[in-house]
């Protein structure tokens, strides 16, 4: 009985099975031939590299997106390590794909905002009533007295794809925990206040000011600005004064007692620590007094 049933089923089913068999093998033949005859050599490496990239298309590498960068690195390994958000991890992955040794590219770069004036510290000339953008405000001369300092409209915070920059009381403040060092902020700042600095240490010392005015003018413009007095340069030789402004040589920088003295001696407290778990900046005496009243 069962056999008969099976036979019946089979007899009604075989044409379908066979047709499908025919169709299947037909396509198999065609596609096999096609896959051999029409083979195009594409570099699987590029795809692999693309896969290894963070795919945020931030442009930190200087190319228009991760895809372009992947192509560029595969052709020219010189570009290795340009992807800041990916960091050394990605670089080594790419190096592995390309069978390369990565050269030691030094400490990672992180942005430093060269200004430390909050809203209350700055002298303003007039109220700005224009477009809420630093670029727009910067094109109007002297919204705030200091032509060098942070305008506080947040072009940099908008440029950061990683939410690592915040406007804190009128001053761009980097969250070094989130920052990937892509440098987008530094490119966005119309006043070139944000410098990408190799962070050899967990936190770095810096002169958080860009004001090149003479001391007296600088003081009239900002409570916390560098007045170019030169005390720091006297205390530690990693400091130098150029155009009324103190500079720190980051390459030479080592936390020593000298630098510690310099930071403590600075009359406007414009030398501060930045970076992960940086100690809070010293507050100028006047400022704390002013804050109380």
């Amino acid at each position, binding site marked *: 009985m069962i056999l008969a049933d099976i036979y019946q089923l089979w007899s009604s089913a075989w044409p*379908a099975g066979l047709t*499908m068999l025919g*169709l299947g093998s037909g396509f198999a033949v065609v596609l096999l031939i096609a896959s051999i005859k029409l083979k195009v050599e594409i570099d699987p490496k590029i795809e692999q590299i693309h896969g290894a990239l963070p795919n945020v298309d931030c442009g930190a590498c200087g190319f228009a997106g991760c895809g372009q960068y992947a192509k560029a690195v595969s052709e020219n390994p010189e570009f290795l390590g340009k992807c800041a958000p990916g960091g050394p991890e990605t670089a080594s992955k790419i190096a592995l794909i390309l069978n390369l040794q990565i050269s030691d590219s030094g400490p990672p770069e992180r942005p430093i905002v060269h200004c430390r004036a909050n809203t209350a510290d700055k002298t303003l000339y007039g109220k700005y009533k224009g477009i809420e953008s630093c670029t727009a405000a910067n094109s109007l001369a002297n919204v705030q007295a200091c032509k060098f300092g942070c305008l506080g409209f947040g072009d940099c915070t908008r440029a950061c794809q990683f939410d690592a920059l915040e406007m804190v009381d009128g001053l761009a403040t980097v969250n070094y925990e989130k920052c990937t060092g892509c440098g987008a902020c530094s490119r966005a700042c119309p006043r070139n206040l944000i410098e990408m600095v190799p962070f050899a240490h967990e936190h770095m010392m810096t002169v958080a000011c860009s004001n090149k005015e003479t001391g007296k003018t600088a003081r009239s413009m900002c409570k916390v600005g560098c007045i170019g007095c030169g005390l720091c340069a006297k205390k530690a030789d990693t400091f130098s004064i150029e155009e009324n402004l103190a500079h720190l040589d980051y390459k030479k920088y080592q936390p020593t007692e000298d630098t510690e003295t310099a930071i403590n001696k600075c009359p406007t407290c414009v030398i501060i620590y930045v970076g992960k778990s940086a100690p809070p900046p010293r507050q100028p005496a006047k400022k704390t007094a002013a804050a109380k009243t």
Partner: protein
Amino acid sequence: MDTLNILLVGFISIVIVNNLVFTKFLGICPYLGVSGRIDMAFGMGMAVTFVVTLSGTLTWLIDHLILMKMGLEVTRYVCFILVIAGAVQLVEMYIRKFFPSLYESFGIFLPLITTNCAILGLCLFINLWGIDNLLEAVVLSFGAGIGFTMAICIMAGIRENLNMADVPESLKGAPITLITAGLLTLAFMGFAGMIR
């Protein structure tokens, strides 16, 4: 004259009156996904048009010459999709090999098309409407592609404008695209009943 009339009416009907996207909900994924920029949208539209014409014709042939003759309607879906998938893959390989520049501009859409309902949907609708004339099947398939291209290009145009609008944050992207699509179908109801 009659055939020409039928073909013309069929073509207009499938391009605007019975547009696959607006009235039959076909090909919505690429319609939402690839309509961000007009050039991309147009590329996708062209790719769909090409493939849908090809597969509409092929499946009609297979359906009428093999399946219906042999009473194998049960394997219809399998055969249709095999034809489509195979054809797409073949075309992709071919274009990639011989027309690299063309491939750069619209070949990247081809793999996506296998999973585009518009293609299989059209083949099924051609069967459902009982189209018994090869020429008509070809024209309808082509028209379906053109209709899709039109829909996706209109959407892309709108979305390019929406980039510069203050769309509320949570509605940005797919939600506003869907709502726009809804209003578009409302607008296209204007053509309903135009061709009977």
